[in-house]
């Protein structure tokens, strides 16, 4: 924007800014007071409960981060919200589920137990293969999505690809429902990874359970994020991705195949989302065709919270959102059914007070 604003416009801007900041400070004070009240005066929860909330938040936050990176990568390059990204994750969850069912079906008799199945005989291989298959399915879905629903609309006005993405999201959700049925399904984990088993950590007088599934999710999401960071920062593909995000035409002039780079970006974000989907299934157990919708929107919230287009921001935003969502209802003394309200409220508040996110720099006119 130019600097030659009229004084009137400037003053009106300042007034609205002032109102916004006063409202923000009031809100912050209210939240702080409420947290103080529930944590110290009412004292309904001991330190072990808080610990439990934070662990649960970190695990779910890792999954949000993985999905949020997908949003951020695509947004950084195409400046569009890949609305169907949650559905890509849902397909990954189905892929992992079917692998587990297949392994449970295959017999692998050992000397001690003739009824042993492959899933329990080789749990590590099974889990690894489930993750690989989930990631491959999601990557394929992401790639096809880009080819069919987004590539023809590269030059269209901005709302057009977004509407196309909404259509793709509805399509994928209902296709999964028609193919696999609307009922909730349960991941049958290998016995060593059974949900509800884990290490007990002593906190105060009691112990807090750190589940194996949660640890697996957290460690794996950290590894995937490190891998992604390596790809983006150190490899040729990462360099071309950053170049395309900076300026498509200049990148094309430098000999970068822009379409191929965009396709690969969708594949990478699909791999991350698919892994998150399998994690979701292994950790939470129940899932159905609708599983991608809420995590998808929340991961978008996480991406906005960290600053959209910014990869470390998406990682941090995901973790932060997971913890806030898990701790929030208890800290504010609200019902736990309102945790989605907290996530959406964070989205609205971030967009009002700091649209560029926590780590994002002010974006140019074209990108904002």
């Amino acid at each position: 924007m130019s600097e030659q604003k009229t004084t009137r416009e400037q003053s009106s801007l300042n007034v609205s800014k002032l109102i916004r900041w006063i409202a923000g400070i009031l809100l912050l004070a209210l939240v702080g007071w409420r947290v103080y009240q529930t944590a110290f005066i009412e004292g309904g929860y001991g330190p072990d409960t808080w610990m439990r909330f934070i662990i649960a938040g970190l695990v779910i936050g890792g999954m949000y981060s993985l999905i949020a990176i997908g949003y951020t990568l695509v947004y950084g390059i195409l400046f569009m919200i890949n609305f169907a990204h949650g559905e890509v994750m849902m397909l990954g969850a189905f892929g992992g589920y079917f692998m587990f069912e297949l392994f449970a079906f295959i017999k692998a008799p050992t000397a001690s137990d003739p009824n042993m199945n492959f899933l329990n005989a080789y749990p590590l291989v099974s889990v690894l293969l489930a993750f690989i298959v989930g990631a491959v399915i999601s990557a394929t879905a992401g790639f096809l999505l880009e080819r069919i629903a987004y590539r023809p609309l590269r030059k269209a006005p901005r709302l057009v690809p977004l509407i196309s993405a909404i259509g793709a999201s509805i399509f994928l959700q209902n296709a999964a429902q028609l193919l696999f049925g609307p009922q909730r399904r349960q991941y049958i984990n290998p016995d060593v990874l059974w949900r509800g088993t884990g290490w007990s950590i002593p906190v105060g007088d009691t112990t807090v359970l750190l589940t194996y599934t949660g640890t697996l999710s957290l460690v794996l999401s950290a590894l995937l994020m490190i891998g992604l960071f390596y790809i983006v920062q150190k490899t040729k593909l990462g360099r071309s991705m950053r170049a395309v995000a900076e300026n498509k035409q200049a990148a094309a002039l430098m000999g970068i195949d822009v379409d191929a780079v965009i396709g690969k970006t969708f594949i990478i974000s699909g791999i991350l989302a698919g892994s998150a989907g399998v994690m979701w299934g292994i950790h939470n157990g129940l899932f159905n065709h609708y599983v991608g919708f809420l995590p998808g929107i929340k991961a978008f919230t996480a991406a906005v919270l960290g600053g959209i287009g910014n990869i470390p921001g998406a990682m941090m935003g995901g973790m932060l959102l997971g913890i806030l969502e898990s701790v929030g209802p208890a800290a504010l003394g609200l019902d736990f059914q309102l945790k989605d309200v907290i996530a959406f409220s964070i989205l609205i508040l971030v967009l009002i007070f700091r649209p560029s996110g926590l780590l994002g720099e002010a974006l140019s006119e074209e990108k904002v």
Partner: protein
Amino acid sequence: MRTSIKNGIRLGSIVGVVLIFFHLTGFSVVASSMLGNLLGNASRTANVTRLPIINLIIFITLLCIFAGGIASKNKEIDSWGNTLIPGAITGAFSGLLVAIFVYLIGIVYAQNIDLRNYLPEVGLPTINYLLFDGKKFASLLYFGLMTVGCIAGAAFFKSVIRADWRKKAQTTSVQTFKKFVKKSGIQKFIGNKITVYVFLAVAALLLYFLPTQWGPYWNYIMGTVGIYILLGLGLNIIVGLSGQLVLGYVAFFAIGAYAFGLMTALEPHAISMNFWLAIGFAILAAALTGILLGLPILNLRGDYLAIVTLGFGEIIRILIKSDMLTGFTNGPSGLNGLAQPRWLGNAFTDINFFHLIVIFVIVAIFIANRLQSSRTGRAWLAISADQTVAQATGINTFKYKLLALALGAAFAGLGGALFASRNQFTGPEDHILMVSINVLCLVIVGGMGSIPGVVVGAFVLKGVPELLRDLESYRLLAFGALLVVMMVMRPEGLWPKGRPALEALYYQKHPKDSPPDGEVQS
């Protein structure tokens, strides 16, 4: 040759995957039973074991003829070789895919494994049917059928649809018709104002008398279409005219319905407000919510706005349902026994209620139309075309965007109140995200920014599915696909908005400046 092989394989893989998808989702069986209904060789509720195989063959053949027609199109030289070879490649490749699939399914069938736990639509009777009554060589049959079908389709399109004699016949018949219209003086008659009035009178009479004839079921369906026209008109102002994508439109619908419900239901507040007052209150409440929501977020960029409003819609629904507000909103059980309209002491019948909806729709169309061609409407158009330029020409963009949101919300509030009153009930599950998506779909399918488009869209998306009840479970799937296809092929919609009169006049005088056709404004 090489490109034709490549295109053939590409199209063939699409056709193959589509047919496999149809098989797995049970659509093939549903289509066969619908064909049976059409041909009269199977009853509507016939079990899959009673369906004649010929229906499935006809269905696959029709699909292949269509695919072959597409495969043979877009050739520079329209020779027989250029037509049949791509058709054959497409058919052979898709046939190969489906044959592999059918072979695998046949193995499963031979083992007597029931897949219904994983793929609920594919039980053993269905597999038996899809294998042409358990034929061992079903995969070969599929391959042959699809290849022949695609070649036949290509030949059919070449010899009939794209043939010179058919095109000539079409142009001559159209010309004769035009000549006839000109000579007989019908054209004068059509352009006449009196004709328009007569037409409107006939339409009004039809709208008055039809509801008494078509029974309560269609009355209900058409009432729903009417309410969706109201919602569509409102969203059309926000999305189509001012170019703000709002995905949480259901929030305003919910607020209208709940404002109406809380004012008139006996529980939990027992205010028992008059119907007409409550309608006004619902409209006001929704419009006020629109303004309050718009104040902080309207400066956001388009796609941020979409997600924020989507989040807002979800917040409203979760809050309505939550335990925290149960004392105020009655929670998940919803509000019962809402007010019915009364006029001069008489309660409304269903038919009267339909008339009421029609009157509201007509008023709403009038308002929307006047707004669209007013200075406000032109300001909206300018904002949707380019916000910065609009601001530079002296339009207070924030004010106009807020106005659009408030007006759109008011329409939604009216729709919500009518919906709640007609059902005498409203609950949180009436206000799911799907309502927003449905309304957005009808606006886009009809054509963004076009009022007749909204009406057409509401009939296509709410009325037509009622005619095809067998396809109910595929409705949303088709919506999703329709949105993508629409955006890729025809983003302007079924009935696109015309350019405003002055602009059209300018382009008539200066044809050089006119933008290329099919350009979208959003």
